[in-house]
């Protein structure tokens, strides 16, 4: 026998102005197992919480039900309250009579009061069966994998290494440093990029806590927070860095020339080369794709000339396996491929270059060895590959306005005779010192013209370029000739990101960059526990923002790892061992590979289980169940909200997933939008937990319709939930068909949390439909088979 205390909150009128809270409290007091039932102005206040604490002590309560706001709102508060009284935080249940009752049904106070009773009864029914669960504590160590060795990865590695954490920094290129190594100067301060970057790069290999793995790629990641198993492949460089003295003799004799990627293909390099002048590790590498000396061994010129004997053709790729506790994704960006924008002629016209090309030209120009002539009339075209639906990229790349401002004034100042134009749509100078920097360029005589260039036409004889553009401020059409056109290319997600993101189940935002856990409050977290984002992998940003985010990601990782253990919500599958026959059907249905079968009995790895409940429907023996939302509990909830249904009345159940549909229903309530009062919303972690058997039980118990509300596939934390739900529904519909019950009584909707109107339409749609087709006859209900 449980001893339950029930508290009905007025919420300062938010509830009590619509719902008769005294009536609800009186109703609750009549229920079995309820020891006391009270109403109070503000349950969440100190007074309200003290009331609960006193009652727990005085009346020896072992379960608490609070009829108030949404559990999304104050659930954590009340969990702490009961926990502080020495009870499990999981013996507290809330009845959502504000967001789901007094707010959406404010026009119908009488019916709302009845619904509030149902919801309170539902919470009592669930509380009766609440288990005294504990938060699951799991150990966590101090090892971090950082994927990507650009400025984000370097900053994160140094922060974590300095803080005493073991860092594995994996970089696919032979040197760390990333795109920043290519830049001339940085905006708006005009620091020499290489000069400020190279000391940071040099700090990495000397940090005793950092293991640097360059020329390496992450091949596989399995596991979970505190136990990620990572397989890395390190490619051979064929040069022993310990012996190499960087004398350059090998480069002189190497016969294989290929475009130099560090110089954006503006120069060539040899097959054996130093990746860049500030490369770390500072060692040569043989690019096996272009080397003539590899199989068959046709050329050994570098080997022959190398005095210290650093060259070794017999190196092979190395597989490195590590285990880490957390992961930071810092795979960065690549620049937009300007050939996609054929109208600007990049790749076709020799005098159309990218801004990254211009960075290299400026660096070499400043060193007194220009790579090519620039001419005097130079035009920058902004937003190439950004803010352009024609190439499928709607987003602003954030840095192009400022790098063009930088490049244009560097060019102008190095030769004031130059005539420099920047053609832009909107000039975005949002950062610290940016507006002042833009003003300086204007003062230097760089001409900013507001208009997006429509096309570039080359004079095939002179190779000069004509730009067609509207000056949208005077509405004149400009057709002018330039010597050089610089495309301010935008940032795109690095092509290599997808592979690793898929291994970690991190989703992408619509712009193609990785999605953070919350845009405001968890900007460097992901929805995968223990995986963080640093730098442009999350979206275009400049160097200071990248560095700040890298430090933020490090600190978020440290916050987890420093605790030595972490808490898991006990919403996890468990096995009724007496019922399990080891058939393994559940193993196939688990999207996170959390279930294994040994000695004929299934068991659930609690660290891997996400609590989606997909396995429940798969089990033919009902051996699988879900803590916090057990089969018995959900069934008790279903029955309790159908009890009050009168003859000829229609009623439908809404199973709302915690992540989206439940939050959405709250948002609709907050917006005071009304919907069918015939609905009763039941919160579950995912609709994949609602087995065909539960649906049929619901119809048998008096429900006339069921709406399953789930997160859209792309934002769902549960990878295969949608297909599980669809398959569960089709099983139920099959049975309905057999029994001549309308299939449309069962509906499945994928929601996003901003779809308020969509939620209301779906609720009313089903409500109206059920009124039309009338309740299911008792005769038909009885016949519903409930086999799984």
């Amino acid at each position, binding site marked *: 026998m449980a001893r339950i205390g029930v508290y009905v909150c007025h919420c300062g009128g938010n509830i009590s102005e619509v719902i008769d809270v005294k009536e609800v409290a009186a109703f609750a007091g009549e229920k079995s197992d309820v020891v006391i039932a009270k109403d109070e102005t503000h349950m969440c206040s100190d007074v309200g919480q003290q009331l609960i604490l006193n009652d727990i002590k005085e009346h020896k309560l072992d379960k608490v039900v609070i009829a108030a706001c949404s559990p999304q709102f104050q659930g954590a508060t009340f969990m702490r309250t009961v926990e502080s009284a020495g009870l499990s935080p999981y013996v507290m249940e809330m009845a959502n009579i504000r967001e789901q009752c007094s707010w959406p049904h404010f026009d119908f106070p009488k019916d709302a009061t009845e619904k509030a009773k149902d919801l309170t009864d539902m919470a009592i029914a669930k509380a009766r069966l609440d288990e005294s669960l504990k938060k699951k504590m799991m150990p966590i160590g101090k090892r971090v994998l950082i994927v990507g060795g650009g400025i984000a990865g370097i900053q994160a590695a140094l922060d974590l290494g300095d803080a005493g954490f073991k860092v594995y920094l994996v970089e696919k290129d032979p040197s760390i440093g990333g795109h920043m190594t290519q830049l001339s100067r940085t905006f708006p301060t005009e620091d020499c990029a290489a000069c400020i970057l190279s000391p940071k790069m040099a700090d990495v290999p000397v940090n005793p806590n950092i293991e640097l793995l360059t020329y390496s790629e992450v091949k596989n990641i399995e596991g979970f927070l505190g136990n990620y198993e990572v397989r890395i492949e390190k490619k051979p460089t064929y040069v022993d860095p310990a012996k190499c003295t960087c004398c350059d003799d090998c480069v002189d004799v190497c016969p294989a020339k290929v475009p130099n990627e560090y110089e954006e293909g503006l120069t060539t390099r040899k097959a054996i080369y130093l990746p860049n002048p500030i490369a770390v590790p500072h060692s040569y590498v043989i690019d096996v794709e272009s080397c003539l000396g590899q199989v068959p061994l046709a050329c050994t010129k570098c080997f022959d000339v190398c005095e210290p004997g650093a060259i070794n053709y017999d190196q092979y790729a190395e597989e490195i396996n590590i285990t880490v506790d957390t992961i930071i994704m810092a795979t960065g960006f690549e620049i937009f491929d300007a050939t996609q924008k054929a109208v600007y002629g990049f790749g076709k016209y020799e005098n159309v270059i990218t801004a990254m090309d211009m960075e290299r030209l400026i660096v070499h120009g400043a060193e007194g060895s220009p790579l090519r002539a620039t001419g005097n009339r130079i035009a920058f075209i902004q937003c190439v590959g950004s*803010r352009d*639906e*024609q190439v499928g990229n709607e987003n602003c790349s954030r840095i192009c306005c400022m790098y063009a401002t930088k490049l244009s004034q560097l060019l102008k100042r190095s030769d004031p005779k130059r005539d420099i134009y920047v053609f832009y749509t909107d000039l975005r100078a949002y950062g610290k010192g940016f507006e002042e920097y833009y003003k300086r360029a204007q003062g230097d005589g760089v001409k900013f013209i507001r*208009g997006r260039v429509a096309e570039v036409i080359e004079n095939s004889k002179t190779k000069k370029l004509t730009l*067609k553009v509207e000056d949208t401020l005077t*509405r004149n059409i400009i057709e002018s000739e330039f010597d050089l056109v610089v495309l301010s290319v935008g940032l795109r997600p690095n092509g290599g990101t997808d592979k690793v993101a898929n291994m970690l189940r991190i989703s992408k935002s619509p712009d193609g960059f990785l999605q953070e856990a919350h845009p405001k409050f968890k900007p460097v977290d992901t929805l995968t526990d223990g995986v963080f984002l640093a730098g442009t992998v999350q979206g275009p940003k400049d160097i200071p923002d990248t560095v700040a985010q890298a430090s933020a990601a490090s600190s978020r990782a440290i916050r987890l790892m420093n605790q030595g253990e972490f808490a898991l919500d006990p919403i996890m599958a468990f096995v009724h061992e007496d019922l399990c026959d080891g058939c393994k059907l559940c193993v196939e249905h688990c999207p996170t590979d959390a279930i294994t079968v040994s000695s004929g009995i299934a068991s659930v790895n609690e660290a891997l289980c996400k609590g989606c409940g997909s396995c429940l429907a798969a089990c033919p023996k009902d051996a699988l169940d879900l803590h916090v939302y057990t089969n018995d509990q959900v069934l008790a909830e279903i029955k309790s909200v159908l009890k009050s249904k009168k003859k000829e009345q229609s009623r439908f159940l809404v199973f709302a997933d915690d992540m989206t549909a439940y939050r959405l229903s709250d948002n609709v309530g907050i917006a005071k939008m009304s919907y069918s009062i015939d609905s009763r919303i039941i919160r579950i972690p995912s609709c994949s937990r609602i087995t065909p058997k539960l649906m049929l039980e619901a119809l048998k118990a008096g429900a006339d319709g069921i709406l399953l509300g789930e997160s859209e596939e792309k934002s769902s934390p549960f990878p295969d939930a949608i297909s599980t739900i669809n398959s569960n529904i089709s099983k139920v519909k099959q049975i309905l068909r057999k029994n001549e019950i309308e299939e449309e009584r069962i509906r499945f909707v994928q929601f996003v949390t901003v779809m308020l109107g969509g939620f209301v339409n779906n609720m009313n749609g089903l409500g109206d439909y059920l009124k039309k087709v009338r309740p299911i006859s008792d005769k038909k209900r009885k016949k519903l088979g409930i086999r799984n």
Partner: protein
Amino acid sequence: MANKITITSENVEFLRKVEELSGEIITLCDQCGTCSAGCPMVGEMDITPSQMVRNVQLGITDVLDTKAMWLCASCFTCTVRCPRGLDLSKIAEALRQIKLRKAVDYIDINKLPEEDLKELPQIALISGFRKFTG
């Protein structure tokens, strides 16, 4: 002298009308000018295509008396270039239709010179009449 205009809810009516006829969300235009600079007929126009759209955004009905919309050749160059994915040819057609549906033809077939009528292929005449007459 600069024009003084007022912006009232009536202006919104005109915008809505053009949006309804064209099926385009005209408020999405961010006035970058790509359409204007690539337009083959812009040299003949009194206002540029982007200016035409701006006028519609502001609900300025005077745009119906400009020549620009009649000079649109429906070549769809702007359509394939608009960074906001707007189809300007539909907007121009909507403006023409507002005029044509009031039985105001842009050209008078009877006034076309005999020799032109003889020389022009059907394809030119039919498409011309489709665009310029109601």
